[in-house]
């Protein structure tokens, strides 16, 4: 806490003794700006993927289908039985038999409009809406097998799993990328700070000889690099945010139909410059103490 106060308040005498490190400081600015840009973009991607996974999971988890393939003479009896069973099952909200005409529409893209529906032996389809946590799927399936052997319950798990997995995979990839960005930022800033410290070796030696404590020397460098990194990151993040907002939501082509930040998610891009400052603070301190350990 005291560190933070010192950092914000600054120390003119400590800063004056270190010459302005123009080149390395600008490197820090550029590097942290670029990294923040990437971080915000990837955050948007990761959060959108996460949201999409939730949407898919919810939407598909709330519905199922019962398919009944039976000879025409027993079909209606089985459909009635299935509807009966479903109406008695807790967790089932509503049921709807999909009429043959609607099935024909679903099949039209594959077989054309002039499909002779009546000539086909179409299975009966019952759309089931679940409510709450949904029914006990295993129990329901067993009961259907016993009482309406031609009925097959599809709870959409088959469809859902790969899509949700893909979205979750994307989210994990985004998190991994953010971790890598943090590491690269830390390394870059540590390198820039090391270069600045090495270039000022003479200054550091003299300061130690006249009785400067390590923290006096460290403070000047740490403050400079932390502020530079925060400033660069703020700029990079801002540019990325503007671009993220401007990207049109193209539901049909985008990996995710809802790209960007929503609601509380806005806190994350705002945290990016803060994270850059924290990373720069520790990276510079690390570099400074390493350099000082070589000076008596």
């Amino acid at each position, binding site marked *: 806490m005291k560190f933070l106060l010192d950092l914000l308040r600054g*120390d003119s*005498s400590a800063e*004056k*003794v270190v*010459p302005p490190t123009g080149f390395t400081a600008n490197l820090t600015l550029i590097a942290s700006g670029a990294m923040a840009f990437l971080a915000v973009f990837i955050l948007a991607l990761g959060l959108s993927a996460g949201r999409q996974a939730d949407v898919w999971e919810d939407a598909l988890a709330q519905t199922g289908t019962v398919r009944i393939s039976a000879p025409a003479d027993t079909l209606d009896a089985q459909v009635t039985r299935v509807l009966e069973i479903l109406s008695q099952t807790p967790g089932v909200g509503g049921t709807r038999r999909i009429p043959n005409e609607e099935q024909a529409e679903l099949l039209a893209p594959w077989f054309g409009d002039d499909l002779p529906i009546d000539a086909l032996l179409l299975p009966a389809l019952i759309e089931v809406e679940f409510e709450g946590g949904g029914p006990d799927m295993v129990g329901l399936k067993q009961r259907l097998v016993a009482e309406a052997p031609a009925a097959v319950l599809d709870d959409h798990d088959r469809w859902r799993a790969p899509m949700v997995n893909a979205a979750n995979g994307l989210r994990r990839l985004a998190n991994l990328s953010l971790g890598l960005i943090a590491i690269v930022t830390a390394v870059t800033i540590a390198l820039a700070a090391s270069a600045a410290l090495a270039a000022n070796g*003479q*200054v550091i*030696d*003299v*300061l*130690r*000889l*006249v*009785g*400067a*404590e*390590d923290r*006096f020397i460290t403070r000047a460098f740490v403050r400079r690099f932390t502020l530079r990194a925060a400033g660069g990151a703020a700029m990079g993040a801002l540019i990325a945010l503007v671009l993220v907002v401007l990207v049109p939501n193209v539901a049909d082509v985008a990996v995710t139909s809802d790209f960007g930040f929503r609601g509380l998610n806005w806190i994350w891009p705002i945290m990016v410059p803060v994270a850059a400052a924290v990373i720069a603070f520790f990276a510079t301190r690390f570099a400074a103490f390493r350099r*000082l350990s070589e000076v*008596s």
Partner: protein
Amino acid sequence: MRQKRRGMTDTGAIELYSVAMDYGGRTLFRDVTFALKPGSFHFLTGPSGAGKTTLIKLCYGELTASEGRVLAFGEDTTHMDRDAIAQMRRRIGVVHQDCRFIDHLSVAENVLLPISVTGQAPSDAEANLAELMGWVGLESLSNHLPPELSGGERQRAALARAVIMSPDVVLADEPTGNVDWEMSLRILSLLIELNKLGKTILCATHDMSLIRQAKSRVSARVLRLRDGRVELAGAEL
């Protein structure tokens, strides 16, 4: 006395016990034992390359002895942590042979450096600074940068920096190496004056006439570094 309160032993402000120093296998000196008693005045002489500068660097912990113990104000310098070393150095003013300035700071800022690094506002020492700069004859060069100074001017600035904090001990490594006789005498007078205020002085020099000058004004002893040993040659000079 101030020194007593801050834990100085009676034996010395700076004490060396059986100190040996070697650089990469070559032994420069060994079995060096002496104490700079608080308020004493010592010269350190010896041929070029004998190790005078090395010995002085051992005293304030810039170098670590290969063997033996170096005590500053009663504390073993090898056992001090880094902050303690910094604190110890604030009590020792050093005139380095190569002066050691920060080249982008003005002469005045360099002289005030020992105060700046303590976190005190250097403005408190402004009056002190003006007097000191006048004393070493650098008042007109205060705002110049160190690389713009002549060798003698650099040495005088280094001396001003060494004493600005009014340290307990002053270690001066050839402070008169690049100045004319008149300025040498002025620098000597400043050291003598500091000694009369109770400061402990160690001055490395080749200049025998300077030592003779001092002898008539202050009770100084001479440490002579020769053949890898230090001998006390107080009486015969």
